[in-house]
């Protein structure tokens, strides 16, 4: 089935299925969402108003048999940052959308009434329906209710109460193969979906298939690609401990932000480490290894059961565990898991919300270390939309302003995740310059040397560090367009067959002849498109800065500060 653009106008409640404009044909995932947002959304519009548009796009390889290709991108102007935004997640919807021939889904306008709606996508068709039954429900209940109502396995994209309340940290949730939740977490895109009054989107591919231009070449490339992923030692670590394997290492480096970024080491790190989590999962009959989408060969997810051996959460990530754990000084994995479950159910970003609570703890709203109190705040305040819940749900910067806290770890209003930029400066450059606010996935560990974007200056100089961060962000933007999970990066670093095999997969899928240079050009185009949007929205180089406290407060144990000058950071955009 040929790819189409599916469009919904929520103002006049109409739908259309359109040809793909030539300029969009070579894009997928983040590249496509950012292209469409830049083309169709006025940069100065209110993110929750009728002129913003919410765009979903599977990756270039989604829906195929390519390993680890099931990420769904979601983009809009962010209500949290005011910048352009893309967030992506696993789950089943990316593959089903691609199989239904949906190159992108664009939701525009805003209803004139107070009704809620749902969308249903099948090959070549999209319908719009009023919705009442699941409005107000948490994500788990939504998925369970809809699975029964729809009567067959389908993709479900939904928002929880946080999205309905248009909280700036609300996420977009995606049903995973187990009927649980994966999240397009960052930037408040759930609030944009709530502003369109769309509660959920169901996707039925009706046995549709993605066409492959050269099946033999595709099969061969996929074999090479998957082998590189499976054989890599980091993949093995991820399949055993998940990303939470990082707790001990980052703590050892002094880069584990603790008690709202007031220290770089957490005395309770052993209680929340990946090793401890692994043991608890085994004791309680959970699953150490688990995939968030069909075709994932790394399986970094896991199923974490409670003490009664009942499901509590899955996809229990390092960044969430850090934010709810070390940053709030909570050393009890059960409290953290309960909080993670609630965040999934409410439909709100686990990094933004937990960092916001860390700031609130500093303000005295709750004692550091009070895991039960943290869970209570999520259940009683955030989920119910009380004044405190709405302040926290609006993100860390809002909490800082509301309570007069100066140590507020955000860039462009988005909470800084899991790695202290004073202790790991290269990540700080990415936080500062990212087009989407602080985000650890914006400049990933892509093998820039393999792609031919290696550095040309001394890598140990500040100029060299900025250049490397830039190259990583260029490469990451390109990978984000493929629908690939970023964890392919580790194999790509060490196995020279991996990235060429990925390019071969794209070429075989579309019958084209991309080279490494084309991939780099794509990454540059995406970054510049996003940067241009932000500039038109009013952002300047002064927004590419870390908060002042990082320069004023040395972080233990190494007692280092952030020492990049603005002029040094500004060279990032010299390309």
């Amino acid at each position: 089935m040929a790819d189409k653009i599916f469009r919904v106008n929520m103002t006049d409640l109409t739908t259309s299925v359109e040809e793909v404009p030539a300029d969009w044909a070579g894009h997928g995932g983040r590249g496509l969402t950012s292209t469409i947002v830049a083309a169709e959304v006025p940069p100065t519009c209110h993110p929750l108003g009728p002129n913003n548009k919410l765009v979903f796009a599977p990756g270039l390889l989604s829906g195929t048999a390519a390993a680890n290709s099931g990420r769904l991108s979601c983009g809009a102007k962010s209500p949290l940052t005011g910048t352009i935004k893309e967030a992506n997640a696993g789950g089943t919807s990316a593959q089903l959308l691609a199989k239904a021939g949906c190159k992108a889904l664009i939701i525009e306008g805003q209803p004139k009434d107070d009704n809620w709606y749902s969308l249903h996508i099948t090959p070549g068709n999209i319908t719009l329906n009023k919705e009442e039954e699941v409005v107000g429900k948490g994500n788990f209940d939504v998925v369970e209710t809809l699975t029964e109502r729809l009567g067959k396995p389908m993709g479900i994209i939904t928002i929880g109460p946080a999205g309905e309340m248009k909280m700036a940290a609300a996420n977009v949730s995606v049903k995973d193969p187990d009927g649980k939740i994966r999240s397009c977490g960052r930037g408040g895109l759930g609030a944009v979906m709530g502003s369109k009054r769309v509660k959920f989107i169901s996707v039925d591919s009706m046995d549709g298939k993605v066409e492959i231009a050269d099946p033999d070449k595709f099969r061969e490339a996929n074999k090479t690609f998957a082998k590189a992923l499976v054989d890599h030692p980091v993949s093995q670590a991820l399949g055993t401990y998940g990303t939470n394997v990082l707790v001990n290492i980052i703590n050892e480096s002094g880069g584990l932000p603790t008690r709202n970024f007031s220290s770089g080491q957490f005395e309770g790190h052993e209680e929340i480490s990946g090793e401890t989590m692994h043991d608890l999962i085994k004791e309680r009959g959970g699953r150490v290894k688990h995939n968030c989408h069909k075709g994932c060969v790394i399986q970094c997810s896991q199923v974490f059961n409670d003490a009664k051996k009942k499901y509590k959460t899955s996809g229990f990530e390092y960044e969430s565990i850090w934010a709810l754990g070390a940053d709030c000084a909570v050393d009890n994995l059960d409290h953290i898991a309960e909080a993670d479950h609630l965040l999934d159910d409410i439909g709100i970003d686990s990094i933004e919300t937990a960092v916001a609570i860390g700031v609130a703890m500093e303000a005295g709203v709750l004692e550091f270390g009070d895991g039960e109190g943290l869970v209570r705040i999520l259940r009683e305040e955030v989920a119910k939309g009380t004044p405190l819940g709405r302040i926290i749900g609006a993100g860390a910067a809002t909490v800082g302003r509301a309570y007069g806290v100066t140590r507020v770890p955000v860039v462009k209003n988005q909470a800084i995740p899991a790695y202290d930029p004073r202790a790991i400066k290269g990540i700080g450059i990415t936080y500062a310059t990212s087009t989407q606010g602080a985000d650890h996935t914006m400049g990933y560990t892509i093998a820039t040397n393999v792609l031919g974007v290696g550095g040309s200056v001394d890598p140990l100089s500040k100029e060299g560090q900025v250049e490397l961060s830039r190259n990583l962000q260029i490469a990451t933007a390109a990978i984000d367009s493929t629908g690939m999970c970023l964890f392919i990066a580790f194999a790509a670093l060490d196995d020279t067959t991996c990235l060429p095999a990925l390019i071969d997969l794209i070429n075989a899928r579309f019958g084209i002849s991309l080279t490494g240079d084309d991939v780099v050009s794509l990454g540059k185009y995406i970054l510049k498109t996003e940067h241009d949007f932000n500039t038109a929205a009013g952002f300047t180089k002064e927004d590419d800065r870390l908060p002042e406290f990082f320069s004023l407060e040395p972080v233990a144990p190494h007692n280092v500060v952030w020492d990049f000058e603005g002029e040094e950071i500004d060279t990032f955009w010299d390309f």
Partner: protein
Amino acid sequence: MANRAEPIHHLTLLIPTQAMERFTTLLQGGIITEIEPAISVGDYLLSLPGFTSQYIADRVETIFLDGLPVDDLTTPITGSRPVLAISAAMPGLAGAIFRKNSFHTALRTMPLRETDESAPCEEKISVTLKLFNMVAVERGQDLFAHGCLLRSSGLLKFISKRPQLLSEVLQCDCDDKPVTSSDLQHVLQGDMVFLKILAAGDTRVMSNKF
């Protein structure tokens, strides 16, 4: 250095083989060994049971000495109470940044490694060795069979949070006398304990009383 005025109890646990992996998590808290001052990181690791040059090159991808990443295995271990932490290859940009000799090392913060000038010139220095993730699993059994010195408080905390694991212990001896798991609180009152853990199917068990 531990207060060696107190007697150090020798605790030996016999466990089912399948429980060994979860016991190796104890190594994230660190074990204490005595070394010659200024021995290199590489030579020290090679002196540990089960560690070979090949293993260190292929699997020990991330090394921290007093919180700073180590690329060069000839780096000397100095100071009065150095802490060495070792791990397999780690995910994420941060994981790549801290990998030894990584392409991404340029993105590290580079605080100067402090040398403790006031440290007394001792014949031996006490190093805390932390083993994380796959390295702990892969080399833990050899280390435990050989015996490890560690803080009693760490062991007590570990087992108190893992009652199921403790219940899987087949036999427990303290200073060659059988003790029950409920006696452990008393046995572990001292600062340090010398711990051996043996898997029931391990041939090394034959050389012990079990």
